[in-house]
């Protein structure tokens, strides 16, 4: 009996010792905890807000995705992954996913490319540079719904500005908002226009932070303006480009208001229905399938999460911080 007690004590001691070894050195110091305590106190308000308004709704939505919601007996009957099965078998989910990928795949690179171009022009010693900078930023700071309403008018089939310009070139009117073939392009054009100014300002700030010494060295080596832009400006802007890529991709995956206000629905034949619109349609537009909507939002989260992880892996190799 004593022997086994001794053996147990020895093993416990070994276990504690191993556990102690696993604790980082700085954690063993009381000063570390004293300092950290203050850090956590400072962080607490933000953590509480994040907890209440982000983490709790996230986990709550995940839980909801496993139930067939019954309002008086909330949350209702537990049905496991049935909602996920339904969604993966729903052709409109796949259509919404394709529409979203299409919009993200075109609008994100086009917006960043145009923003790079605009930022490069604004970086030159132009006249009215301040005015141009403000003008480009206006599209971003104007309330979104107001902007979209104006675009609705511009896209209008019979008296829209875009069709007027087309008619000047003898082209036929386009039913931008009523023809399934033009529904996604209409969203992409609006999205690019809205964000190009904002992205240009971010890139411009990045450009102005690049040390002039690199350009002087390039000039001495005989590099042309374009070569300097390609070999110095663009590589040194990769942190900003990467940042824009992440936020614009996440933003584009979450497109909803543009579609909702522009088409007063998901577009003709649901041609512009995005994933978020699909979620809203399931959960809130008359049908109130809250569990299904929660499951679809979990899928959207997973997609964005995976794509962001992939981007971060690529960024490790492509982004130059100095």
């Amino acid at each position, binding site marked *: 009996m004593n022997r086994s007690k001794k053996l147990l004590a020895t093993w416990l001691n070994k276990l504690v010792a191993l556990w102690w070894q696993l604790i980082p050195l700085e954690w063993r110091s009381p000063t570390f905890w004293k300092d950290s305590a203050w850090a956590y106190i400072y962080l607490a308000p933000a953590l509480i807000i994040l907890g209440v308004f982000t983490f709790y709704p996230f986990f709550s939505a995940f839980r909801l995705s496993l139930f067939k919601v019954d*309002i*008086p007996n*909330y949350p209702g009957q537990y049905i496991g992954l049935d909602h996920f099965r339904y969604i993966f078998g729903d052709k409109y989910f796949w259509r919404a996913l394709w529409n979203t990928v299409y919009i993200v795949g075109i609008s994100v690179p086009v917006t960043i490319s145009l923003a790079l171009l605009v930022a490069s022009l604004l970086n030159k010693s132009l006249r009215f540079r301040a005015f141009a900078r403000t003008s480009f930023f206006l599209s971003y700071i104007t309330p979104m719904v107001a902007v979209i309403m104006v675009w609705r008018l511009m896209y*209008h*089939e*019979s*008296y829209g500005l875009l069709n007027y310009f087309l008619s000047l070139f003898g082209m*036929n*009117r386009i039913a931008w*908002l*009523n023809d*399934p073939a033009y529904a996604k392009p209409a969203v992409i054009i609006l999205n690019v226009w809205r964000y190009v100014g904002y992205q240009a300002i971010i890139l411009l700030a990045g450009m102005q932070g690049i040390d002039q010494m690199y350009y002087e060295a390039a000039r001495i080596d005989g590099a042309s303006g374009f070569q300097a832009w390609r070999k110095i400006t663009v590589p040194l802007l990769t942190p900003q480009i990467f940042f824009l890529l992440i936020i614009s991709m996440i933003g584009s995956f979450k497109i909803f208001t543009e579609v909702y206000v522009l*088409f*007063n*629905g*998901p*577009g*003709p*034949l*649901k041609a512009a229905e995005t994933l978020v619109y699909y979620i809203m*349609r399931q959960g*809130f*537009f*008359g*049908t*109130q399938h809250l569990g299904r909507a929660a499951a679809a939002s979990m899928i959207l989260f997973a997609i964005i999460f995976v794509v962001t992880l992939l981007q971060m892996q690529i960024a490790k190799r492509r982004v130059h911080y100095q």
Partner: protein
Amino acid sequence: MKLRNTWIALGLLALLFVGFAATATEPVTIEFWHRFSERHNDTLLELAARFQERYPHITVEWVYQGSYSALQTTINGAVVAGEVPTMTIFYENWIPAVADALVPLEPFFTAEEIADIVPGLLYENLLTVPFNKSIMVLYYIEDYVPVPPTTWQEFYDLCVANTVDEDGDGQIDRYGTGLRPASNPEQFLALLAQNNGTILNEDWTEVTLDNEAGLEALEFYASLAPYAWITSEYLNSNIGYVAMAIDTSAGWYYWNKAAEGAGLTVKTAELPVGEKAASFIQGTNIGLFKDVPAEEFAAGLLFLKFLLEAENTGYWAARSGYLPVTLGGLQSQTWLDHLATHPEAVASSIMMPLGVSQITHPNYGDMRDVLSTMCEEILLGAETLEDALAVAVSEIESLLE
């Protein structure tokens, strides 16, 4: 089920009398959730003031809850949280989800009172009573259509005649009509009702959309496609682009405003008749919640009855652009005076007793989605009528399970 509801109602009735007798002079506040836009504020306040003149101890508090979908979400959330208002407005298909939280009102109404409600607006057990209702009528631009059509054939012929390329550039400058399949399948449902068609049979066990009446209505609807501006936008947003439109009577304010701005004259008429004169009624109802104090419920019931009184439903309709929801209201002096000065309301007033409402099936929201998709696919030529109808019928069948 019926017996249980009767007992519940009798229990509540007893509570009502006890509660009301005990607190007849105690101040009570009724919380009424709605989503009426700002332009109806004065009318709502006036109704509340008139009610308070009669019952000085009861205050009506109108609480605006945002869009219809926001209101539905809020109602569902309130039921889950047990924090319900005294009363709220509902669309028919919202009711099944919260039916257990509502009081069946049938025992509180006399047979005469029930018979006075417009026939197309009576719901099982009177779980809710109608409030703001509109009906599909025909809008026509008099500058293009001097005499409105009275039959489907006339309507079709006028659609053909009014689909024109005025400047000869090969593009249509005006369409005969406008169809909004995705956002307003009720246009089709109005035609379906005119053809004696329904989506489901009476006991909701079978889909009847593809029977002879349904098929005929759908064929007529589809035949309008070449002469229709097919869109999800409000048809009055492009005034003059369509010569006629089947649209809700509640839209008169916007049609008229747009027409005045464009220097056109818009008028309304009864829907062109198919097999019979009929139309589709839209709008919300009022329900009273169980989970409120007895005196609050009693006060809410008094207000509900007040709103259904002929002169009051007439007043609300005249001021808001909706329609009286009782037969007495349609004959009330206030409403008749309104018709004398507002000819645009005559067509809807005539059609109201002939209207049908949406069914209260718990999956009606999904069924409406299926109908929208079917209508859109047919009109935009994405599917043949037969294929789209077959898919719709099969999807609706799966929603019956």
